[in-house]
């Protein structure tokens, strides 16, 4: 009957359409995987940029720190230098005198292992 082949035709076409639908779904899946990768990359970039900013802020803050520490240390050092100079000026002459006095200070002794040779 001619109707039969037509029916079969119709069924075959329906099957084809069905396959097309499924095919589209599969394409969608592939696309989704690609999307996953590209979106992930975007998010990662954003994260990295944020971290970079945080780090730069941290660096800036402690560069300032080093400067201030240096200033403090310098001030302290200069104060100490002044103190040293002052102490030195005060006691210098006394020490020079002490040195010179001791240069001429002599106390001759016989070595402790020796005995005076008696006559």
């Amino acid at each position, binding site marked *: 009957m001619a109707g039969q082949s037509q029916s079969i035709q119709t069924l075959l076409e329906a099957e084809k359409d069905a396959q097309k639908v499924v095919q589209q779904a599969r394409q969608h899946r592939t696309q989704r995987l690609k999307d996953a990768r590209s979106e992930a990359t975007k998010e990662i970039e954003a994260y990295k940029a944020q971290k970079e900013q945080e780090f730069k802020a941290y660096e800036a803050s402690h560069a300032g720190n080093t400067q201030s520490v240096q200033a403090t240390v310098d001030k302290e050092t200069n104060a100490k230098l002044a103190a040293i100079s002052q102490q030195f000026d005060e006691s210098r002459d006394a020490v020079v005198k002490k040195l*010179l006095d001791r240069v001429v200070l002599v106390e001759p002794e*016989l070595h402790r292992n020796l005995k005076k040779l008696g006559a």
Partner: protein
Amino acid sequence: MASRPMNDEEVLSEMNKMVAFIKQEALEKAREIRVKADEEFAIEKAKLVKQEQQAIDAQYEKKRKGAEVAQKIAHSTLTNKSRLRLLHLREQNLQDLFQAAREQLATLASSSQYVQFLQGVLVQGFLQLLDTEVNIHVREVDAAAAKQAADAASKQYTEISGRQVKYELVTSLSPDLAGGIKLVTGSKRITLDNTLDERLRLLEDRMLPEIRNDLYGNNENRKFYT
């Protein structure tokens, strides 16, 4: 169920039913695929992001540690430089002091106690050498004073040690020296330098702890003093 063959209407209706069935199955399958795809999308994306985030975190942690260490090094260098400046000044002061002492050394040779000093220094020398024959080296300007001192010195030496010494004066010392004597044993093997310059030099070295205390006071960082 019809036991007779279907008519056209029934065939059509059956056909439509079958077509609809096929379509329905396809739609359901497609939906499953889509849902699964979305799930996988989410999982995959989360995995990638987490992976990279961890790597980035580790990277920045390392950078941060590096920066911290660099800062510590910088601070330590500052402290060190500061200490060096202080020490440098102290050293300069010390040299200044010694220089002043050396300059004033010459005045000692013209003092009234000079002969007595020469005598003491001679006796000290004799007692160290313990030789029976000694050459006494002096500056030309000291020749007379030395002769006087040597007589008394040899007597004092005998008194202290019970030994005799025979000496000879040699005016060989350079006039640039500040004063004092050098003794050489008879066999010319041992020299004893008892000049003012040498004595000052020895003192400069040995008196350093005492000088430090006199100039700058005790060291606060030091824990043990005998």
